[in-house]
């Protein structure tokens, strides 16, 4: 990359003459020049808030079959209309967001911790173990996520847990690989050698030196993976292989919408717009986080 191109991609924070601006200052500075970043943070805040507060802000019971109009367009009572059996789509969308966030948090949490552990083992362990693990990672990554998910559903049946398991297993290799590369690079770094010479144990080196160095990129990556997780959950639920009705999930709403697509477009619109907003929100937020915490990472995007 030439100097000109490098200058173009350099963040404001990096250009500042001040040595080591505080995290808050860096955050504000990066965000002030980054409209999409602000949009991302706002969208994510709204989505997370609505997921947490879902039981209190849904105007109706999302599973209640009402005697009112069926497949009605949006009205003052039903903001996104009603579905084929008269349920309030807006309430179902909000409740579906709670499920989506739950899956994302559980699956990414599991994948992050397992990926971290396996990556450290691969990076610090003996060579043969590393090779075997790489092979298994490559094999897991060669499955299409949905096809692998369907195979797992055949084995253990469809449920919320199955979705979480599928997403976790298919994401572990990605995180583990990054941790492994970082660990290997750090293993021979001079400050680690110095630490070892001073008699530091493995545990101290891992906790104090390796972990902080790998955690940042990992969390940024996880934030950008949220949309993928949510699309997988919605997709499997759409096929009837994920979250089971009557639990409202965006995928279940979309499936109802698909079955009655010739009667009303509103379930499809209601089920899909939040997926698109979540994707935009977490992608923008991830990009902004990357700029704030690690300008060097910008190139890999």
């Amino acid at each position, binding site marked *: 990359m030439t100097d000109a191109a490098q200058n173009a991609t350099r963040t404001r924070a990096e250009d500042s003459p001040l040595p080591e601006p505080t995290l808050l200052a860096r955050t504000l500075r990066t965000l002030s020049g980054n409209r999409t970043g602000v949009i991302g943070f706002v969208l994510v805040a709204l989505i997370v808030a609505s997921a947490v507060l879902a039981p209190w802000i849904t105007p109706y019971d999302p599973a209640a079959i009402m005697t009112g109009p069926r497949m009605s367009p949006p009205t003052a009572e039903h903001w996104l209309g009603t579905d084929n059996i008269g349920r309030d789509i807006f309430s179902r969308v909000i409740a579906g967001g709670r499920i989506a966030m739950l899956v994302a948090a559980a699956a990414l949490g599991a994948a992050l911790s397992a990926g971290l552990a396996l990556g450290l083992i691969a990076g610090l362990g003996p060579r043969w173990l590393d090779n075997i693990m790489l092979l298994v990672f490559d*094999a897991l990554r060669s499955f299409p996520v949905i*096809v692998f998910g*369907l195979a797992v559903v055949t*084995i253990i049946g469809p449920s919320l847990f199955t979705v979480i398991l599928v997403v976790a297993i298919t994401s572990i290799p990605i995180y583990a690989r990054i941790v492994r590369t970082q660990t290997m690079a750090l293993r021979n770094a001079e400050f680690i050698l110095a630490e070892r010479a001073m008699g530091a144990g493995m545990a101290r080196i891992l906790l104090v030196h390796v972990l902080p160095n790998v955690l940042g990129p990992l969390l940024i990556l996880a934030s950008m993976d949220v949309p993928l997780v949510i699309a997988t959950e919605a*997709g499997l639920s759409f096929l009837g292989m994920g979250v089971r009705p009557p639990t409202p999930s965006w995928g279940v709403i979309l499936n109802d919408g698909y079955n009655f697509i010739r009667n009303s477009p509103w379930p499809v619109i209601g089920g899909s717009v939040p*997926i698109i907003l979540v994707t935009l929100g977490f992608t923008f937020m991830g990009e902004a986080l990357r700029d704030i915490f690690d300008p060097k990472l910008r190139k890999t995007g």
Partner: protein
Amino acid sequence: MLYYAGQRLVLSVVIVMVAVSILTLMMHVVPGDPAVMILGPRATPELIEQTRVAMGLDKPLPIQLLTFFGNILRGDLGQDVFTGRPVSRIVFEQLPYTLILISVSILWSAALGILLGAYSALRRNTWLDTLTGILSVGTISIPAFVMALYAVLIFAVWLGWLPAIGAGRGFWDGISHLILPAFAIGVAWVGYVARIVRASMLEVMGEPHVRMARAFGLPERRITRSHILKIAVQPAVTLLGTGVAHLFSAAVFVEVIFARPGIGALIVSAVNERNYPIVLGAVLVTTGIIVLATLISDLVVAWLDPRQREGM
């Protein structure tokens, strides 16, 4: 080059074998007898025993895996649980539909994506560049199955321009049935490819060899085509190679939504009837194709840029 290709081929075969072993192992780790799972809870003990022997489940696991791989080498993927037809025949009957769908999707989207990416890199900060940027982010944010639903809603239900069900009969009918599915799968890839080509074009454009070519007075068109684009498409080729897995995932939804035949639709119906041999066979074939595609894209990159061959 040949040595490199051979090395990569062996590794690919090993990866597919490991992938299939993982699935088979999962089936054994899960509590419960696979034979009972397939036959349902009301099967008689004799029937269960019979199925166990027929599926080779009575033998130890390593023997089972070896027999399974041996059978695969002979082209035998097992039998359909219900009809007894060979799985390989069922899978290969459906495979062409999916391959055509995927190839058409990727061809149109890669062509348009490279074109848009290259143009917006050459004409930075024009309206086309801005439009490409907005379109990329917008289309990437919409999963293929949502795109497919909107395609049905807009072009089939509201406008009534194109058919939304089945694969059609005959050539022209087949093409009119292919347009919406291929659009739904491909649209996000236009964005991906355009973004990555634009970024790598900008990077390559500043490299010394391009300045050199310009200093020699080569025509600008020729510099763009053979000195910039040839290097700049490499990340896109890698992306497309690894993206085949995503294409298969997208094909599952698109085949279900458009009620098209294909390997995705086959897997979904097999999962619904818990027809495990078909699921396993279909997963094996798709995984094989994906690993092959990754291999091909690596070889294409190595062919485009000899530097990549070293250090691998």
